[in-house]
């Protein structure tokens, strides 16, 4: 679609607000700079803005920082909430774990470089925002999208796909690049002044940084690699391993949470090991002990290790040698470990820790 062609029209009829009452926009807020700026641009035009943020289970925000070393590090802020507070707007956090599975498992538009279904994901989130808008009597939706910026949902040919598949149509406004796109309903109706919207284009972050400085935003989040684990190569590799070994593309929340934690090794096709890397991760894995065969060294300090899959006697001995390798007894002649089955029965193993150079790199997921 060329920028000159009008967008299809969203047919939802909305009553005009009471005299003097502002028009209302729901803003997708990720916690990053772009969505913060987009919301600010609207606030500057006198629009009433409230934020919406989705929890898919793959979000990098919050808990993963809390899991690792939470004894030492102060709990990390939730950037979406922080953004809302800076802007002085409400933020509604919506849990979409179940519904989101279909986006990850069956993306109509496929994946990006990793298991990131960015175009389907954006369509899904804007659709959820549209449903929220209709339910709460808001007028339009805004995002912090920038034409030509990564990911692939922000191309000139994919932006209309998001507008169409979400059902938002011309009630979807992208303030940071609106001048490069067809006019939307809020512009046409004069709710917002198109001449004061922006024309950001491409991957350079300089225009955003200039605008941030203009608004006096200094402490904004700059998430490296985005806010979603599915864009992470190693995480995607672990998810692909989970699907291929189970023979089905399904997951539960616990599965995807466990993929965020620990070192994952698959020494044999029939089982993998999840090895805690620090006290925070060991504490987190503790919560899963009853659902997995697990090991820990008793003669030396070391990690808690969960066994995912079925392990025979030889496999358990191998797992014990590897567990010993990741503990303080790695240089010892022998390490004593306890293996606990899912019924809570304990057995003792005494093993020689596996030398690092005997662990094939392909065991690491």
């Amino acid at each position, binding site marked *: 679609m060329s920028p000159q062609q009008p967008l299809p029209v969203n047919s939802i009829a909305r009553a005009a607000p009471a005299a003097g009452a502002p028009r209302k926009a729901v803003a997708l807020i990720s916690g990053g700079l772009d969505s913060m700026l987009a919301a600010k641009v609207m606030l500057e035009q006198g629009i009433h803005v409230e934020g919406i943020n989705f*929890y898919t289970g793959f*979000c990098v925000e*919050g*808990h993963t920082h809390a899991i690792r070393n*939470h004894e030492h590090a102060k*709990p990390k802020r939730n950037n979406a*909430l*922080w953004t809302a507070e800076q802007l002085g707007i*409400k933020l509604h956090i*919506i849990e979409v774990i179940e519904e989101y599975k279909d986006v990850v498992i069956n993306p109509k538009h496929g994946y990006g470089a990793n298991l990131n279904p960015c175009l389907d994901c954006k369509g899904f989130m804007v659709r959820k925002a549209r449903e929220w808008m209709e339910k709460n009597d808001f007028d339009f939706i805004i995002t912090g999208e920038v034409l030509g910026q990564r990911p692939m949902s922000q191309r000139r040919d994919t932006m209309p796909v998001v507008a169409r598949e979400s059902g938002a149509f011309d009630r979807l406004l992208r303030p940071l690049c609106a001048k490069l796109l067809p006019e939307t309903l809020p512009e046409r109706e004069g709710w917002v002044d198109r001449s004061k919207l922006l024309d950001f284009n491409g991957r350079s972050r300089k225009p955003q940084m200039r605008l941030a400085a203009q608004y006096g935003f200094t402490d904004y989040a700059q998430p490296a690699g985005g806010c979603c684990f599915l864009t992470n190569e190693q995480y995607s590799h672990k998810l692909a391993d989970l699907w291929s070994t189970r023979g089905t593309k399904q997951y539960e929340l616990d599965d995807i949470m466990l993929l965020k934690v620990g070192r994952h090794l698959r020494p044999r096709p029939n089982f993998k090991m999840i090895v805690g890397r620090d006290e925070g991760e060991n504490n987190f894995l503790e919560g899963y002990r009853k659902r997995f065969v697990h090991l820990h060294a008793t003669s030396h300090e070391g990690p808690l290790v969960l066994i995912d899959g079925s392990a025979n006697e030889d496999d358990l001995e191998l797992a014990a040698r590897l567990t010993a390798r990741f503990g303080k007894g790695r240089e010892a002649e022998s390490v004593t470990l306890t293996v606990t089955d899912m019924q809570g029965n304990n057995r003792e193993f005494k093993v020689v820790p596996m030398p690092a150079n005997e662990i094939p790199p392909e065991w690491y997921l």
Partner: protein
Amino acid sequence: MSHFVLDARYLLCPMPVIRTQNRIAELAPGDTLEVHATDPGALHDIPAWCRVHGHEVVSVTNADKKISITLRVGGAA
């Protein structure tokens, strides 16, 4: 004015704040909600969420990894 208790223990952030938000949506202004949690992120997220929505944090306790946060629902719940 009623007092309610929400068990958000063993949930990881942002789930405690989401459960708090959804529970508060069902309450009336002036009601109090006592949230129990174990994820330390709740100590930060729940008060932040209350600030942006205009609810009052009445008390916060954190002893022995057991977190309890009591909130009073604001006028614009």
